[in-house]
Protein backbone atom coordinates (compact mmCIF):
# COMPACT_ATOMS: atom_id res chain seq x y z
CA UNK A 1 0.00 0.00 0.00
CA UNK A 2 1.93 3.02 -1.17
CA UNK A 3 -0.71 5.53 -2.14
CA UNK A 4 -3.87 6.47 -0.26
CA UNK A 5 -6.25 8.84 -2.04
CA UNK A 6 -8.89 10.48 0.11
CA UNK A 7 -11.86 11.92 -1.79
CA UNK A 8 -13.09 14.85 0.26
CA UNK A 9 -11.37 17.39 2.49
CA UNK A 10 -13.64 17.76 5.50
CA UNK A 11 -13.25 16.57 9.07
CA UNK A 12 -13.29 12.85 8.30
CA UNK A 13 -10.89 13.20 5.37
CA UNK A 14 -8.40 15.41 7.20
CA UNK A 15 -8.46 13.20 10.29
CA UNK A 16 -7.66 10.21 8.10
CA UNK A 17 -4.56 11.97 6.76
CA UNK A 18 -3.49 13.07 10.23
CA UNK A 19 -4.03 9.61 11.71
CA UNK A 20 -2.17 7.90 8.88
CA UNK A 21 0.89 10.04 9.54
CA UNK A 22 0.51 9.68 13.31
CA UNK A 23 0.37 5.94 12.75
CA UNK A 24 3.67 5.99 10.89
CA UNK A 25 2.42 5.61 7.32
CA UNK A 26 5.17 6.82 4.99
CA UNK A 27 3.46 6.30 1.63
CA UNK A 28 1.74 8.96 -0.45
CA UNK A 29 -1.39 10.63 0.93
CA UNK A 30 -3.57 12.79 -1.32
CA UNK A 31 -6.66 14.76 -0.30
CA UNK A 32 -9.02 15.83 -3.08
CA UNK A 33 -11.41 18.56 -1.94
CA UNK A 34 -14.13 20.29 -3.94
CA UNK A 35 -14.05 23.32 -1.65
CA UNK A 36 -11.23 25.78 -2.33
CA UNK A 37 -10.01 25.90 1.27
CA UNK A 38 -8.08 23.62 3.61
CA UNK A 39 -10.07 21.31 5.92
CA UNK A 40 -11.92 23.17 8.66
CA UNK A 41 -14.41 22.47 11.44
CA UNK A 42 -18.00 23.07 10.38
CA UNK A 43 -19.74 23.39 13.77
CA UNK A 44 -18.81 27.07 14.32
CA UNK A 45 -20.40 28.02 10.98
CA UNK A 46 -23.85 28.15 12.59
CA UNK A 47 -22.54 29.64 15.85
CA UNK A 48 -19.41 31.71 16.55
CA UNK A 49 -18.53 32.22 12.89
CA UNK A 50 -22.10 33.13 11.93
CA UNK A 51 -22.34 35.62 14.77
CA UNK A 52 -19.10 37.23 13.57
CA UNK A 53 -17.21 36.37 16.76
CA UNK A 54 -14.67 34.39 14.78
CA UNK A 55 -13.42 35.85 11.53
CA UNK A 56 -11.52 32.80 10.33
CA UNK A 57 -12.63 29.19 9.98
CA UNK A 58 -11.13 26.83 12.57
CA UNK A 59 -8.59 24.84 10.58
CA UNK A 60 -8.32 21.14 11.39
CA UNK A 61 -4.56 21.54 11.05
CA UNK A 62 -2.57 24.69 10.33
CA UNK A 63 -1.62 25.15 6.65
CA UNK A 64 2.01 24.21 7.29
CA UNK A 65 1.03 20.82 8.65
CA UNK A 66 0.19 19.44 5.20
CA UNK A 67 3.51 20.49 3.73
CA UNK A 68 5.51 19.38 6.75
CA UNK A 69 3.84 15.99 6.66
CA UNK A 70 3.98 15.51 2.89
CA UNK A 71 0.22 15.34 2.49
CA UNK A 72 -0.76 16.43 -1.00
CA UNK A 73 -3.86 18.60 -0.95
CA UNK A 74 -5.76 19.30 -4.14
CA UNK A 75 -8.35 21.93 -3.37
CA UNK A 76 -11.12 23.30 -5.57
CA UNK A 77 -11.01 19.97 -7.34
CA UNK A 78 -14.04 17.78 -7.73
CA UNK A 79 -13.54 14.03 -8.00
CA UNK A 80 -15.87 12.91 -10.76
CA UNK A 81 -15.85 9.18 -10.08
CA UNK A 82 -13.86 6.37 -8.64
CA UNK A 83 -13.05 3.67 -11.18
CA UNK A 84 -12.54 0.55 -9.10
CA UNK A 85 -11.21 -1.78 -11.78
CA UNK A 86 -8.68 0.74 -13.07
CA UNK A 87 -7.70 1.80 -9.50
CA UNK A 88 -7.97 5.48 -10.39
CA UNK A 89 -10.05 8.46 -9.33
CA UNK A 90 -11.12 10.56 -12.27
CA UNK A 91 -11.23 14.29 -11.63
CA UNK A 92 -13.40 16.81 -13.39
CA UNK A 93 -11.49 17.67 -16.54
CA UNK A 94 -10.47 14.05 -16.97
CA UNK A 95 -7.23 13.76 -15.02
CA UNK A 96 -6.84 10.35 -13.40
CA UNK A 97 -5.24 9.94 -9.99
CA UNK A 98 -4.07 6.39 -9.27
CA UNK A 99 -4.55 4.82 -5.85
CA UNK A 100 -3.80 1.65 -3.98
CA UNK A 101 -6.41 2.42 -1.33
CA UNK A 102 -9.18 5.01 -1.65
CA UNK A 103 -11.24 6.57 1.14
CA UNK A 104 -14.49 8.27 0.13
CA UNK A 105 -15.31 11.10 2.55
CA UNK A 106 -17.39 13.39 0.37
CA UNK A 107 -19.97 14.29 3.02
CA UNK A 108 -23.44 15.58 2.35
CA UNK A 109 -25.11 18.38 0.46
CA UNK A 110 -28.11 20.37 1.58
CA UNK A 111 -31.46 19.25 0.33
CA UNK A 112 -32.96 21.98 -1.81
CA UNK A 113 -36.62 22.85 -1.67
CA UNK A 114 -38.17 22.21 -5.10
CA UNK A 115 -40.36 25.29 -4.91
CA UNK A 116 -40.65 28.58 -6.81
CA UNK A 117 -38.36 31.39 -5.75
CA UNK A 118 -35.72 29.20 -4.13
CA UNK A 119 -33.08 30.77 -6.39
CA UNK A 120 -33.95 34.35 -5.42
CA UNK A 121 -31.09 36.35 -3.93
CA UNK A 122 -31.58 36.40 -0.19
CA UNK A 123 -32.77 32.78 0.00
CA UNK A 124 -29.76 31.09 1.56
CA UNK A 125 -28.69 27.86 3.18
CA UNK A 126 -25.72 26.78 5.24
CA UNK A 127 -23.10 24.11 4.74
CA UNK A 128 -19.74 25.64 3.86
CA UNK A 129 -17.75 28.77 4.70
CA UNK A 130 -19.06 30.82 1.73
CA UNK A 131 -22.64 30.03 2.84
CA UNK A 132 -21.94 31.30 6.34
CA UNK A 133 -20.24 34.38 4.89
CA UNK A 134 -23.27 35.01 2.69
CA UNK A 135 -25.62 34.83 5.67
CA UNK A 136 -23.32 37.10 7.69
CA UNK A 137 -23.33 39.62 4.85
CA UNK A 138 -27.08 39.37 4.28
CA UNK A 139 -28.00 40.09 7.89
CA UNK A 140 -26.02 43.33 8.00
CA UNK A 141 -28.70 46.01 8.03
CA UNK A 142 -31.45 43.39 7.98
CA UNK A 143 -34.11 43.33 10.64
CA UNK A 144 -36.02 40.13 9.99
CA UNK A 145 -35.06 36.59 9.07
CA UNK A 146 -37.32 33.74 8.01
CA UNK A 147 -36.01 30.23 8.66
CA UNK A 148 -37.43 27.15 7.02
CA UNK A 149 -36.92 24.00 9.09
CA UNK A 150 -36.05 23.64 12.74
CA UNK A 151 -33.64 20.79 13.02
CA UNK A 152 -30.26 21.48 14.59
CA UNK A 153 -29.13 23.81 11.80
CA UNK A 154 -32.39 25.78 11.80
CA UNK A 155 -32.39 26.00 15.60
CA UNK A 156 -28.76 27.11 15.81
CA UNK A 157 -29.16 29.66 13.03
CA UNK A 158 -32.32 30.98 14.70
CA UNK A 159 -30.39 31.40 17.96
CA UNK A 160 -27.39 33.06 16.32
CA UNK A 161 -29.54 35.50 14.33
CA UNK A 162 -31.55 36.40 17.44
CA UNK A 163 -28.25 37.05 19.18
CA UNK A 164 -27.38 39.38 16.31
CA UNK A 165 -30.59 41.27 17.01
CA UNK A 166 -32.79 40.14 14.15
CA UNK A 167 -36.44 39.22 14.48
CA UNK A 168 -36.71 35.55 13.57
CA UNK A 169 -39.69 33.51 12.37
CA UNK A 170 -39.30 29.77 11.80
CA UNK A 171 -41.61 27.54 9.81
CA UNK A 172 -41.35 23.85 10.70
CA UNK A 173 -43.19 20.88 9.25
CA UNK A 174 -43.31 18.88 12.49
CA UNK A 175 -45.12 19.84 15.74
CA UNK A 176 -41.96 20.88 17.63
CA UNK A 177 -38.35 21.69 16.84
CA UNK A 178 -36.18 18.60 16.42
CA UNK A 179 -39.18 16.32 16.77
CA UNK A 180 -37.69 13.52 14.70
CA UNK A 181 -34.54 13.49 16.81
CA UNK A 182 -35.92 14.20 20.26
CA UNK A 183 -39.61 13.41 20.16
CA UNK A 184 -42.32 15.95 21.02
CA UNK A 185 -41.68 16.07 24.79
CA UNK A 186 -38.04 17.15 24.54
CA UNK A 187 -38.80 19.08 21.37
CA UNK A 188 -41.11 21.27 23.44
CA UNK A 189 -38.22 22.05 25.79
CA UNK A 190 -36.28 23.38 22.79
CA UNK A 191 -39.37 25.27 21.66
CA UNK A 192 -39.73 26.93 25.08
CA UNK A 193 -36.09 27.98 24.99
CA UNK A 194 -36.49 29.68 21.63
CA UNK A 195 -39.80 31.22 22.60
CA UNK A 196 -38.16 32.76 25.67
CA UNK A 197 -35.59 34.29 23.34
CA UNK A 198 -38.29 35.82 21.17
CA UNK A 199 -38.28 33.47 18.19
CA UNK A 200 -41.64 33.17 16.51
CA UNK A 201 -42.30 29.54 15.57
CA UNK A 202 -44.94 28.20 13.24
CA UNK A 203 -45.37 24.42 13.33
CA UNK A 204 -47.18 21.96 11.05
CA UNK A 205 -46.68 24.23 8.10
CA UNK A 206 -44.25 24.24 5.20
CA UNK A 207 -42.74 26.51 2.60
CA UNK A 208 -44.63 26.77 -0.67
CA UNK A 209 -43.05 29.71 -2.47
CA UNK A 210 -40.47 32.43 -1.95
CA UNK A 211 -41.53 35.78 -3.33
CA UNK A 212 -39.71 38.98 -4.13
CA UNK A 213 -39.00 41.56 -6.80
CA UNK A 214 -35.50 40.46 -7.74
CA UNK A 215 -34.77 39.61 -4.15
CA UNK A 216 -36.40 37.66 -1.30
CA UNK A 217 -39.23 39.57 0.34
CA UNK A 218 -41.65 36.98 1.72
CA UNK A 219 -42.29 33.30 2.23
CA UNK A 220 -45.69 31.89 1.35
CA UNK A 221 -46.65 28.73 3.22
CA UNK A 222 -48.82 25.74 2.41
CA UNK A 223 -51.29 26.88 5.07
CA UNK A 224 -51.60 30.26 3.35
CA UNK A 225 -49.42 32.41 5.58
CA UNK A 226 -47.31 35.19 4.14
CA UNK A 227 -44.18 35.84 6.23
CA UNK A 228 -42.12 38.84 5.24
CA UNK A 229 -38.42 39.13 5.85
CA UNK A 230 -35.11 40.52 4.62
CA UNK A 231 -33.38 37.17 4.39
CA UNK A 232 -34.44 33.52 4.36
CA UNK A 233 -32.37 30.57 5.51
CA UNK A 234 -33.39 27.04 4.56
CA UNK A 235 -32.39 24.06 6.70
CA UNK A 236 -34.42 21.07 5.59
CA UNK A 237 -31.93 18.24 5.78
CA UNK A 238 -29.19 16.80 3.65
CA UNK A 239 -28.44 14.06 1.19
CA UNK A 240 -25.21 12.06 0.97
CA UNK A 241 -22.86 12.92 -1.91
CA UNK A 242 -22.42 9.43 -3.24
CA UNK A 243 -21.71 10.23 -6.89
CA UNK A 244 -17.92 10.14 -6.68
CA UNK A 245 -17.98 6.59 -5.36
CA UNK A 246 -18.60 5.37 -8.90
CA UNK A 247 -20.71 2.51 -10.23
CA UNK A 248 -19.26 -0.45 -8.35
CA UNK A 249 -19.80 0.61 -4.78
CA UNK A 250 -23.16 -0.35 -3.17
CA UNK A 251 -25.26 2.68 -2.24
CA UNK A 252 -28.47 3.01 -0.23
CA UNK A 253 -28.96 6.30 1.64
CA UNK A 254 -25.19 6.65 1.72
CA UNK A 255 -22.27 4.50 0.75
CA UNK A 256 -22.72 1.16 2.45
CA UNK A 257 -19.78 0.02 4.53
CA UNK A 258 -19.29 -2.84 6.92
CA UNK A 259 -18.30 -2.47 10.57
CA UNK A 260 -14.65 -1.96 9.56
CA UNK A 261 -15.65 0.82 7.10
CA UNK A 262 -14.91 -1.20 3.97
CA UNK A 263 -17.21 -0.91 0.98
CA UNK A 264 -17.89 -4.04 -1.00
CA UNK A 265 -15.03 -3.11 -3.33
CA UNK A 266 -11.54 -4.19 -2.33
CA UNK A 267 -9.39 -1.26 -1.28
CA UNK A 268 -12.26 1.26 -1.21
CA UNK A 269 -13.48 2.62 2.11
CA UNK A 270 -16.07 5.24 3.07
CA UNK A 271 -16.31 7.37 6.20
CA UNK A 272 -18.02 10.43 7.65
CA UNK A 273 -21.46 11.77 6.79
CA UNK A 274 -21.58 9.95 3.46
CA UNK A 275 -21.02 6.50 4.97
CA UNK A 276 -23.83 4.31 6.19
CA UNK A 277 -22.02 1.92 8.48
CA UNK A 278 -22.91 -1.37 10.06
CA UNK A 279 -22.83 -0.52 13.74
CA UNK A 280 -22.62 -3.44 16.19
CA UNK A 281 -25.28 -1.95 18.49
CA UNK A 282 -27.42 0.36 16.33
CA UNK A 283 -27.48 -1.64 13.09
CA UNK A 284 -27.03 0.12 9.76
CA UNK A 285 -26.83 3.86 10.43
CA UNK A 286 -25.65 7.03 8.75
CA UNK A 287 -25.13 10.03 11.01
CA UNK A 288 -23.93 13.58 10.45
CA UNK A 289 -21.84 14.30 13.52
CA UNK A 290 -18.50 16.07 13.80
CA UNK A 291 -17.30 13.62 16.43
CA UNK A 292 -18.25 10.54 14.43
CA UNK A 293 -16.55 11.95 11.32
CA UNK A 294 -13.36 12.43 13.29
CA UNK A 295 -13.50 9.00 14.91
CA UNK A 296 -14.23 7.27 11.60
CA UNK A 297 -11.15 8.98 10.18
CA UNK A 298 -9.11 7.56 13.04
CA UNK A 299 -10.61 4.09 12.62
CA UNK A 300 -10.11 3.93 8.86
CA UNK A 301 -6.49 5.04 9.22
CA UNK A 302 -5.81 2.28 11.73
CA UNK A 303 -7.52 -0.22 9.45
CA UNK A 304 -5.53 0.96 6.44
CA UNK A 305 -2.49 0.19 8.57
CA UNK A 306 -3.81 -3.30 9.24
CA UNK A 307 -5.79 -3.10 12.47
CA UNK A 308 -9.10 -4.59 11.20
CA UNK A 309 -10.94 -2.66 13.89
CA UNK A 310 -14.72 -2.42 14.24
CA UNK A 311 -16.08 1.14 14.37
CA UNK A 312 -18.29 0.82 17.44
CA UNK A 313 -18.28 4.40 18.71
CA UNK A 314 -21.64 5.07 20.42
CA UNK A 315 -21.93 8.50 18.72
CA UNK A 316 -21.95 11.82 20.50
CA UNK A 317 -22.68 15.38 19.43
CA UNK A 318 -23.40 18.75 20.87
CA UNK A 319 -25.25 21.92 20.00
CA UNK A 320 -25.03 25.42 21.46
CA UNK A 321 -28.13 27.61 21.36
CA UNK A 322 -27.98 30.98 23.13
CA UNK A 323 -26.15 30.20 26.37
CA UNK A 324 -27.56 26.71 26.59
CA UNK A 325 -25.45 23.64 26.00
CA UNK A 326 -27.09 20.61 24.49
CA UNK A 327 -25.52 17.19 24.02
CA UNK A 328 -26.69 13.81 22.83
CA UNK A 329 -25.18 10.35 22.70
CA UNK A 330 -26.29 7.08 21.19
CA UNK A 331 -28.85 6.61 18.45
CA UNK A 332 -32.60 6.20 18.65
CA UNK A 333 -35.40 6.42 16.12
CA UNK A 334 -38.11 5.04 18.43
CA UNK A 335 -38.32 4.65 22.19
CA UNK A 336 -41.08 3.78 24.65
CA UNK A 337 -39.74 5.39 27.82
CA UNK A 338 -38.08 8.69 28.67
CA UNK A 339 -36.42 8.96 32.08
CA UNK A 340 -35.51 12.45 33.28
CA UNK A 341 -32.67 13.24 35.68
CA UNK A 342 -32.76 16.87 36.80
CA UNK A 343 -35.41 19.38 35.73
CA UNK A 344 -36.72 20.00 32.23
CA UNK A 345 -38.42 23.16 33.47
CA UNK A 346 -35.13 24.55 34.79
CA UNK A 347 -33.37 23.53 31.56
CA UNK A 348 -30.89 21.46 33.48
CA UNK A 349 -31.42 17.78 32.87
CA UNK A 350 -30.49 14.55 31.19
CA UNK A 351 -33.14 12.53 29.37
CA UNK A 352 -32.53 8.83 28.90
CA UNK A 353 -34.37 7.26 25.97
CA UNK A 354 -35.15 3.57 26.44
CA UNK A 355 -36.83 0.95 24.30
CA UNK A 356 -38.11 -2.11 26.15
CA UNK A 357 -35.81 -1.18 29.00
CA UNK A 358 -32.69 -0.83 26.89
CA UNK A 359 -30.84 2.49 26.92
CA UNK A 360 -30.53 3.74 23.34
CA UNK A 361 -29.67 7.40 23.67
CA UNK A 362 -29.12 10.18 26.19
CA UNK A 363 -29.96 13.83 25.65
CA UNK A 364 -28.73 16.53 27.99
CA UNK A 365 -29.34 20.23 28.40
CA UNK A 366 -26.95 22.15 30.63
CA UNK A 367 -26.18 18.84 32.33
CA UNK A 368 -22.53 18.31 32.00
CA UNK A 369 -21.49 14.76 32.65
CA UNK A 370 -24.16 12.15 32.20
CA UNK A 371 -24.53 12.22 28.42
CA UNK A 372 -20.99 10.96 28.04
CA UNK A 373 -21.02 8.81 31.17
CA UNK A 374 -23.96 6.89 29.75
CA UNK A 375 -22.06 5.95 26.59
CA UNK A 376 -20.58 2.70 27.96
CA UNK A 377 -24.12 1.64 28.94
CA UNK A 378 -25.37 2.42 25.43
CA UNK A 379 -22.48 0.48 23.90
CA UNK A 380 -23.27 -2.49 26.14
CA UNK A 381 -26.98 -2.38 25.19
CA UNK A 382 -27.62 -2.14 28.92
CA UNK A 383 -31.02 -2.23 30.61
CA UNK A 384 -30.44 0.19 33.49
CA UNK A 385 -32.90 0.53 36.34
CA UNK A 386 -34.94 3.70 35.55
CA UNK A 387 -34.93 4.65 39.24
CA UNK A 388 -31.12 4.72 39.21
CA UNK A 389 -31.08 6.74 35.98
CA UNK A 390 -33.46 9.29 37.50
CA UNK A 391 -31.41 9.74 40.67
CA UNK A 392 -28.78 12.49 40.26
CA UNK A 393 -26.82 11.05 43.17
CA UNK A 394 -26.16 7.85 41.26
CA UNK A 395 -22.90 8.03 39.32
CA UNK A 396 -23.56 6.36 35.97
CA UNK A 397 -19.99 5.13 35.93
CA UNK A 398 -20.90 2.92 38.87
CA UNK A 399 -23.57 1.07 36.89
CA UNK A 400 -22.59 -2.28 35.47
CA UNK A 401 -23.35 -2.91 31.80
CA UNK A 402 -26.27 -4.98 33.06
CA UNK A 403 -27.64 -1.73 34.51
CA UNK A 404 -27.33 -2.89 38.11
CA UNK A 405 -25.60 -0.75 40.68
CA UNK A 406 -22.06 -1.94 41.34
CA UNK A 407 -21.76 -3.39 44.85
Amino acid at each position, binding site marked *: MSRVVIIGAGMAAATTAVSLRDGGFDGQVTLIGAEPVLPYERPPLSKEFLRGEEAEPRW*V*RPPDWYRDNAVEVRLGTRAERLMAAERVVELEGGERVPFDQAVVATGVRNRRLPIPGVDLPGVLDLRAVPDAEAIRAAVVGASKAVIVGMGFIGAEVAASLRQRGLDVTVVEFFATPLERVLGPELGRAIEALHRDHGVEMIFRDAAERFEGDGRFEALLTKEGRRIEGDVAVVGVGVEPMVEAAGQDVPIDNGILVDATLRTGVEGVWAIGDVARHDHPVFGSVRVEHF*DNAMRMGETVARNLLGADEIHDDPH*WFWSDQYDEQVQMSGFATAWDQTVIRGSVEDRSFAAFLLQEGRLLSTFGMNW*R*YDVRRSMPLISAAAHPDPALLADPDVDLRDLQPSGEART
Partner: protein
Amino acid sequence: MSQWVKVGSAGEVGEGEILSFGAGERQVAIANVEGDLHGFDDWCSHQQCSLAEGDLDGTIVECPCHGSQFDVTSGEAVQGPATDPVDVFEVREQDGELQVLLTQE
Protein backbone atom coordinates in the same frame (compact mmCIF):
# COMPACT_ATOMS: atom_id res chain seq x y z
CA MET B 1 -12.35 39.85 45.83
CA SER B 2 -11.00 36.36 46.33
CA GLN B 3 -12.09 33.74 48.75
CA TRP B 4 -11.10 30.18 49.64
CA VAL B 5 -14.05 27.84 49.22
CA LYS B 6 -14.24 24.30 50.56
CA VAL B 7 -14.92 21.76 47.81
CA GLY B 8 -13.89 18.49 49.48
CA SER B 9 -11.57 16.83 51.94
CA ALA B 10 -7.81 16.99 52.16
CA GLY B 11 -6.24 13.94 50.55
CA GLU B 12 -9.30 13.29 48.41
CA VAL B 13 -7.45 13.66 45.10
CA GLY B 14 -4.84 10.92 44.86
CA GLU B 15 -1.55 11.21 43.00
CA GLY B 16 -1.98 11.09 39.22
CA GLU B 17 -5.73 11.52 39.62
CA ILE B 18 -8.19 14.26 38.53
CA LEU B 19 -11.50 14.83 40.25
CA SER B 20 -14.19 17.40 39.53
CA PHE B 21 -15.83 19.59 42.18
CA GLY B 22 -18.62 22.13 42.21
CA ALA B 23 -17.26 25.43 43.53
CA GLY B 24 -19.78 28.23 43.63
CA GLU B 25 -20.95 28.71 40.05
CA ARG B 26 -17.90 26.92 38.69
CA GLN B 27 -17.02 23.30 38.17
CA VAL B 28 -13.34 22.92 38.99
CA ALA B 29 -11.16 19.96 38.09
CA ILE B 30 -8.34 19.31 40.52
CA ALA B 31 -5.32 17.29 39.40
CA ASN B 32 -2.69 15.85 41.69
CA VAL B 33 0.71 15.92 39.95
CA GLU B 34 3.30 14.28 42.19
CA GLY B 35 1.69 15.70 45.28
CA ASP B 36 1.03 19.19 43.86
CA LEU B 37 -2.62 20.14 43.39
CA HIS B 38 -3.68 22.13 40.32
CA GLY B 39 -7.20 23.48 39.76
CA PHE B 40 -8.64 24.29 36.34
CA ASP B 41 -12.02 24.74 34.69
CA ASP B 42 -13.57 21.32 34.15
CA TRP B 43 -14.83 22.14 30.68
CA CYS B 44 -12.73 21.98 27.56
CA SER B 45 -12.41 25.32 25.78
CA HIS B 46 -13.08 23.57 22.46
CA GLN B 47 -16.42 21.81 22.96
CA GLN B 48 -18.62 20.46 25.71
CA CYS B 49 -16.40 17.96 27.47
CA SER B 50 -15.14 17.31 30.99
CA LEU B 51 -11.36 17.45 31.29
CA ALA B 52 -11.52 15.64 34.65
CA GLU B 53 -12.66 12.57 32.72
CA GLY B 54 -9.60 12.75 30.48
CA ASP B 55 -6.13 11.34 31.01
CA LEU B 56 -3.37 13.01 33.01
CA ASP B 57 0.22 12.58 31.86
CA GLY B 58 2.61 14.63 33.96
CA THR B 59 1.13 18.13 33.97
CA ILE B 60 -0.77 17.55 30.71
CA VAL B 61 -4.45 16.65 30.65
CA GLU B 62 -5.95 15.29 27.45
CA CYS B 63 -9.61 15.90 26.71
CA PRO B 64 -11.48 12.60 26.21
CA CYS B 65 -13.53 14.01 23.33
CA HIS B 66 -11.24 15.47 20.71
CA GLY B 67 -7.78 15.08 22.17
CA SER B 68 -7.07 18.71 23.04
CA GLN B 69 -4.28 18.95 25.62
CA PHE B 70 -3.86 21.52 28.37
CA ASP B 71 -1.07 22.19 30.83
CA VAL B 72 -2.81 22.01 34.21
CA THR B 73 -0.29 24.41 35.77
CA SER B 74 -1.10 27.27 33.39
CA GLY B 75 -4.34 26.30 31.63
CA GLU B 76 -2.58 26.81 28.31
CA ALA B 77 -3.76 24.74 25.34
CA VAL B 78 -0.68 22.87 24.16
CA GLN B 79 -2.38 20.79 21.48
CA GLY B 80 -5.51 21.42 19.41
CA PRO B 81 -8.22 21.38 18.37
CA ALA B 82 -8.65 23.73 21.37
CA THR B 83 -6.80 27.02 21.02
CA ASP B 84 -8.13 29.00 23.99
CA PRO B 85 -6.76 28.32 27.47
CA VAL B 86 -8.91 27.12 30.36
CA ASP B 87 -9.13 29.12 33.61
CA VAL B 88 -6.89 27.91 36.40
CA PHE B 89 -7.52 28.10 40.15
CA GLU B 90 -5.32 28.01 43.21
CA VAL B 91 -5.92 24.96 45.36
CA ARG B 92 -4.83 24.20 48.92
CA GLU B 93 -5.43 21.72 51.67
CA GLN B 94 -6.05 23.28 55.04
CA ASP B 95 -7.71 22.14 58.27
CA GLY B 96 -8.55 18.84 56.64
CA GLU B 97 -10.35 20.58 53.79
CA LEU B 98 -9.71 20.78 50.08
CA GLN B 99 -10.12 24.44 49.10
CA VAL B 100 -10.23 26.42 45.86
CA LEU B 101 -9.53 30.15 45.59
CA LEU B 102 -12.45 31.75 43.77
CA THR B 103 -12.39 35.32 42.51
CA GLN B 104 -15.61 37.26 42.41
CA GLU B 105 -15.89 39.74 39.61
